[in-house]
């Protein structure tokens, strides 16, 4: 489409929309309006939104109509001698009182809805959500397993600095590697917190938006009524990749949910077994480098960049003191385990073998050729505080 066409059709679209009632309760219009969503609260929020939007539009149009009438009726050519009145107590009382009544009318349903939205008591299950630059960690407190969920749209889709235009999937920027799975019909309590800066977990279909604040725990809840896949985003500016930390929730029936939990627990046991095995074994340089390269690409390159060259406040690792000085191997490992200032901790996301591998990789890639090898056993010792 040519630019002009886009402008014309866009403007036209805007006005037909306005005319045809943007706030109509039709799902296909949700491109222009809030979504009714799939919870009782989201539906109530949607209804209240429509109501207040209509009332406000009517108020605005009444004001506009009065202005239009005045500028036509009382333009100089039509009304050459102005009247001189400059106050009217009656009028002033009327237009103070009527807005007050409208506001009181609107406040009443809002209060009831708010009280319900804030009441997270008597929940059937609890999921803790931790914002981490730029991914979400979900901890199922009742079943005791957790996983990290991050953007799965490949960088090749969004990095278009050559401006050639890239092919994009339907759920571009709204897809993740590990979906959160929740049962329908159950009251799910969310506990929100953060490991670094403030994030905000927002799924419009649930009308849930709650800030994840480092050092504090916030509480909110939802009860999903319909199975399906619901997408959301981080709503609070949280640094470089704020626009790239989506949320995907898959709501399923209770039996499917139980199955999924069982599978997660199995995976967890299996992973623990593999990690223990890996930690016990002595690794060769090749194996560590191969695994380290993978871990680095997945977890570290967003900040430290693919060639370890760093970017803005994320330090370079290629040629850096910490990654080349043979006396700093433990310090290097500890930073990855526990984090430092703006560097996130990875101790809870990576196994001992993975940490050993990524540290080894960083000490032997991009021209860092120390020959140092870190074994998982040493990572385990550092974790234990030796």
């Amino acid at each position: 489409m040519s630019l002009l066409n886009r402008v014309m059709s866009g403007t036209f679209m805007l006005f037909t929309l306005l005319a045809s009632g943007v706030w109509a309760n039709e799902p296909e219009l949700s491109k222009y309006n809030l979504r009714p969503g799939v919870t009782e609260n989201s539906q109530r929020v949607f209804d209240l939104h429509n109501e207040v939007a209509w009332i406000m539009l009517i108020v605005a149009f009444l004001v506009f109509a009065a202005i239009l009438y005045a500028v036509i009726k009382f333009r100089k050519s039509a009304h050459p001698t102005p009247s001189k009145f400059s106050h009217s107590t009656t009028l002033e009382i009327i237009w103070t009182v009527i807005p007050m009544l409208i506001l009181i009318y609107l406040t009443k349903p809002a209060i009831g809805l708010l009280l319900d939205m804030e009441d997270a008591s008597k929940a059937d299950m609890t999921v803790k959500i931790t914002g981490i630059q730029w991914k979400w960690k979900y901890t199922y407190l009742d079943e005791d397993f957790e996983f990290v969920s991050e953007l799965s749209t490949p960088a090749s889709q969004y990095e278009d600095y050559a401006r050639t235009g890239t092919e994009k999937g339907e759920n571009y920027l709204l897809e993740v590697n590990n979906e959160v799975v929740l049962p329908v019909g159950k009251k799910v309590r969310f506990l929100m917190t953060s490991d670094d800066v403030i994030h905000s977990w927002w799924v419009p279909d649930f009308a849930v938006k709650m800030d994840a604040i480092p050092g504090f725990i916030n509480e909110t809840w939802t009860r999903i009524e319909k199975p399906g896949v619901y997408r959301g985003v981080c709503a609070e500016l949280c640094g470089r990749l704020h626009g790239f930390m989506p949320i995907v929730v898959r709501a399923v029936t209770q039996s499917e949910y139980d199955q999924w939990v069982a599978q997660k627990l199995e995976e967890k046991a299996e992973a623990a077994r593999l990690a223990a095995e890996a930690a016990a074994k002595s690794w060769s340089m090749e194996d560590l480098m191969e695994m380290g390269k993978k871990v680095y690409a997945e977890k570290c390159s967003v900040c430290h960049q693919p060639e370890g060259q760093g970017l803005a406040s994320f330090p370079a690792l290629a040629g850096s003191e910490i990654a080349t000085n043979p006396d700093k191997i433990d310090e290097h490992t500890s930073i990855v385990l526990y984090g430092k200032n703006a560097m996130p901790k990875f101790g809870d996301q990576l196994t001992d073998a993975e940490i050993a591998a990524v540290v080894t990789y960083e000490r032997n890639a991009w021209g860092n050729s120390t020959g140092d090898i870190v074994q998982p056993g040493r990572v385990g010792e550092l974790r234990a505080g030796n």
Partner: protein
Amino acid sequence: MAHDHHPTGIKRWLFTTNHKDIGSMYLWFSFIMFLIGGAMALGIRTELFQPGLQFFDPNTFNSLTTLHGLIMVFGAVMPAFVGLANWLIPMQIGAPDMALPRMNNFSFWILPFAFTLLLLSLVPQLFPDGAPNFGWTFYAPLSTKYGPASTDFFIFGVHLMGISSIMGAINVIVTVFNMRAPGMTLMKMPMFVWTWVITAFLLIMVMPVLAGAVTMMLTDRHFGTSFFDAAGGGDPVMFQHIFWFFGHPEVYIMILPAFGIASHIIPTFSRKPLFGYASMVYATASIAFLSFLVWAHHMFTVGMPVAGELYFMIATMIIAVPTGVKIFNWVATMWKGSITFETPMLFALAFVILFTLGGVSGVMLAMTPVDKQYHDTYFVVAHFHYVLFPGAIFGTIAAVYYWLPKWTGNMFNETLSKIHFWLSIISVNITFFPMHFSGLAGMQRRVPDYNMMFEGFNQLSSIGAFMLGFSQLLFMYIVINCIRGGQGKATDNVWDGAEGLEFTHLPSPAPYHSFEKAPEVK
């Protein structure tokens, strides 16, 4: 005249203590900042024209949104209003000049340094880790523990701007309370003076709070305190409370003087006195008072106790009442008038209409349960741009068109100014109206990239933004052309039936020292 001996060339501007010279410097400074901030907005809109990252790294994009906001708020809107105050208040109250002329000079000359500090953060040789990138609201800990090194320049820049604003505010208050012409009681003061005095009190109350916030940031960053760090016993949410205790009155600082401006222009071109002068004054004062009691409506998702959320919702909705009074009074002023549509009137009308739109979306945002959906989306971006662009900026433009003939003694080019008006009003709506939709549909703010479903709206906004930005160059041309002679001499009254001492008692152009002898006000 013996009084008119003053230095020429650069010294005139460096050492001037004259309210008109200082007013002009503020206004030009503001316009330059408006162009710089506008260029950044166009950078943002270029990146957002289509999905995908085409031009900026996300970190640079965040710096653009941050600096765009800071420059527009502190560099464009606030200095524009101080510039207008300088030009107009002495003339409107029958005084020769501002009460504290040297301080006046100082408070202006701080600004170029403050903004140089802020803009230096863009120089990569100085700051390899980039410019401030945490949004104009600079929430901790993104701005403290995670802020780039240039954050410290930002902090000192904000301190300087604050000092400048406080001095400007003190000057307005002292001038208005001490230098009014005999007979001009408080309840006879022109509305612009009233709105500015109230604004000045707001400034004096909140700029120190902002200074406190950035000082705490500084000590958190460098001196081991933990005001905003939970690990040391602090609270990142406390930052937001402090910031918005400043920030909400700040919103009114950026609109009250525009209310005053509309209250001059609408009566003049309706040939009828302002309807409900007293209720206008009381409404302005109550808006200002309430603005201290509603700050946390910017924070409905931080997890406040429900009682707090209820309180802030109700208090916020109450503000709609005095705001409505102002709008109804303007409409009533036009009622049964004899209206003509010179350019200042067109801008004032656009101001009333579009500000009303921004106002009604404000009531929607005040409702806590639904705000949880709107918060941090483009719906909010649409709302505050509707009150700021057609509000603060159209208000300033209307004022410039209205008083320019008085300032320069020349009429501006009416045809061009009407073209400027129509370009501006069409493009401002193309830019900001679609943002309501993209926000409701789920697009969060402060992101450099988005899903394809938002593409149409973003393209409209980008096209509108370029039109809007470039139309303002026409405004610059019209003003310069008017200063250089324009369309011939203006009469002393300028407009048919303009009220106010500046129009009834002073020639056009107004003399260098406005009133050598105080006029008598009946």
